[in-house]
């Protein structure tokens, strides 16, 4: 193994492991601010370090500190302490590992070597995701069972029944997708979506499989135990379901696991149906061909975008009443300086690339970076969809949930398979 191999392994594993964890903070922030945006209030925006609030992100830090220093209780009535401790770990680790096969950029070609840009470079793809996602339910079952009380047990039972019944429509939606793409590897699926339909529409899964995307997303929401399918928690009925006995750090791990699972399933939805890392109309070959014009375009676009961002910060980061020497304006000044500093840094990198490195392996690295940014932007939007749905739809009743799964989604996904196969056979 050369130094380059080792470096790329480290980079890929680091992206696969740390990006979901960083996005826990982002999605918790988005959950709170999104909820307050939808409910027409401000949300958490007061916690600060030396007056810097980072739009509410500091609140997460405060929460983390609170959770770390809380007493971590294992109630005396719990007999199976091992399972009680194991359960949150299973939930968090399976969520993290299920992200490992999602490609965040196209195959990186450096010299004569090719690197699959995913944490575990395998072509098992969607099968790996299905396998690992089905393990997550063990965490919830064990938590509910070992908590040894009625609420925990009910939460665990509900969650298990829900995950088992929604795995079927999810699997069937994936089957019709496999018929379209002809592969299980997520990277090949994303490459397929870089093509154009009729020469001008990006061939994304959402266009080829309009019913499949709805079925898959509903099933993914159910698997992630998010509202409107969060019957396992159901605060108003069974207090908090399976994690009613958990406190302190073990609760934190459950909480993190939920958001990591949300991130992983957003990433899977994006990869399967929304083109993955592909920039619409610019697949990897096109980007490589026009690397220099694209860089020039980016060099022009970044200051313009930064100007709008700065204006937005200036407009919103003020006190809502008259104050002398408004500290929020002072805060905004610093943020705007940071934005412009980032712009200068980016411009310098682009300039150096254009002058010294264009045309070589740097093209491939630039394209990979652009694709990682696209992938993260799409995934962030999908995370917002999760938040959006949570604060828009009420929770299902349990019988409605099962009816939706078995009476609506299952026949619909079977029909989808037949229609898709018929069209694919007719066209080939």
């Amino acid at each position, binding site marked *: 193994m050369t130094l380059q191999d080792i470096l790329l392994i480290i980079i890929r594993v680091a992206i696969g492991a740390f990006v979901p964890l960083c996005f826990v903070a982002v999605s918790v922030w988005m959950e709170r601010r999104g909820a307050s945006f939808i409910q027409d209030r401000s949300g958490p925006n007061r916690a600060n370090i030396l007056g810097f609030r980072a739009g509410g992100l500091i609140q997460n830090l405060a929460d983390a500190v609170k959770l770390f220093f809380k007493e971590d209780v294992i109630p005396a009535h719990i*007999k199976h302490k091992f*399972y009680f401790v194991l359960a949150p770990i299973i939930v968090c680790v399976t969520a993290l590992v299920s992200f490992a096969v999602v490609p965040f950029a196209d195959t990186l070609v450096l010299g004569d070597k090719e690197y699959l840009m995913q944490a575990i470079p395998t072509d*098992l793809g969607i099968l790996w995701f299905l396998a690992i996602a089905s393990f997550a339910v*063990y965490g919830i079952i064990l938590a509910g*069972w070992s908590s040894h009380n009625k609420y925990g047990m009910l939460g665990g039972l509900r969650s298990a029944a829900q*995950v*088992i019944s929604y795995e079927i429509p999810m699997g069937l939606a994936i089957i019709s997708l496999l018929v379209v793409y002809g592969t299980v590897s997520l990277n090949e699926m994303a490459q397929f979506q870089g093509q154009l339909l009729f020469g001008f529409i990006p061939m994304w899964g959402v266009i080829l499989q309009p019913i499949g995307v709805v079925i898959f997303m509903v099933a993914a929401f159910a698997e992630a135990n998010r509202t409107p399918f969060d019957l396992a928690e159901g605060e108003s009925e069974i207090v908090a379901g399976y994690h009613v006995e958990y406190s302190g750090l073990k609760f934190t791990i459950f909480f993190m696991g939920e958001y990591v699972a949300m991130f992983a399933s957003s990433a899977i939805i994006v990869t399967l149906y929304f083109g993955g890392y592909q920039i619409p109309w610019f697949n990897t070959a096109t980007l490589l061909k026009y690397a220099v014009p694209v860089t020039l375009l980016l060099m022009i676009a970044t200051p313009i975008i930064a100007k709008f961002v700065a204006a937005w910060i200036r407009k919103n980061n003020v006190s809502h009443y008259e104050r002398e020497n408004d500290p929020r304006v002072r805060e905004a000044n610093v943020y705007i300086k940071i934005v412009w500093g980032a712009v200068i840094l980016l411009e310098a990198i682009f300039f150096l690339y254009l002058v010294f490195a264009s045309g070589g392996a740097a093209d491939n690295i630039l394209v990979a970076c652009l694709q990682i940014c696209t992938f993260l932007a799409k995934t962030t939007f999908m995370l917002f969809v999760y938040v959006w749905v949570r604060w828009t739809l009420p929770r299902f009743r349990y019988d409605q949930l099962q009816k939706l799964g078995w009476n609506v989604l299952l026949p619909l996904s079977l029909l989808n398979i037949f229609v898709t196969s018929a069209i694919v056979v007719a066209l080939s």
Partner: protein
Amino acid sequence: MFADGLFILFTVIAVTGAAGLVLFKHPMNGAMSFIVTLIAMAGLYALLSAKLIFAIQLIVYAGAIMSLILFIIMFLNIQEEDLPVEEGRFKYLIGGAIIVAPIGLFLTRVIKSFPGAEKTITVEGFGGIKEVGLILFREWLLPFEIVSILLLVSLVGAVVLAGKRRMVK
């Protein structure tokens, strides 16, 4: 060698899990150790470069079937006092092991005398998803379809049996 080390690791885990399944008294412990065995088995399949079987082992056995079993264990909510008293179960265990031992020895001898036991996998893409699919649907289509009908029959049978018991009530 690295692969040999992994093989020993997985076999030890698999056998330990299987022993746990037999020896633990509480059904939850038994089920959890069985999951460990199934995952270790998946690792063994991966070592044989049977990628598809590896994934299916994880999805179907370790994932779906065992979560149903855990679901049932939780649903019945078995307490310590519900479990039967098993006196002298170690006596039975040791006796059984002594009786079964010759069969085990016989089996190891059979496996050792297999022709081509030293062979390694040579075909490119062996056990991959596409390769297995092509073989299954080209050369073994009829057996494959018969097996799927068998599964369907058992599914319908289960539904019919479950329905009948309800009608008697």
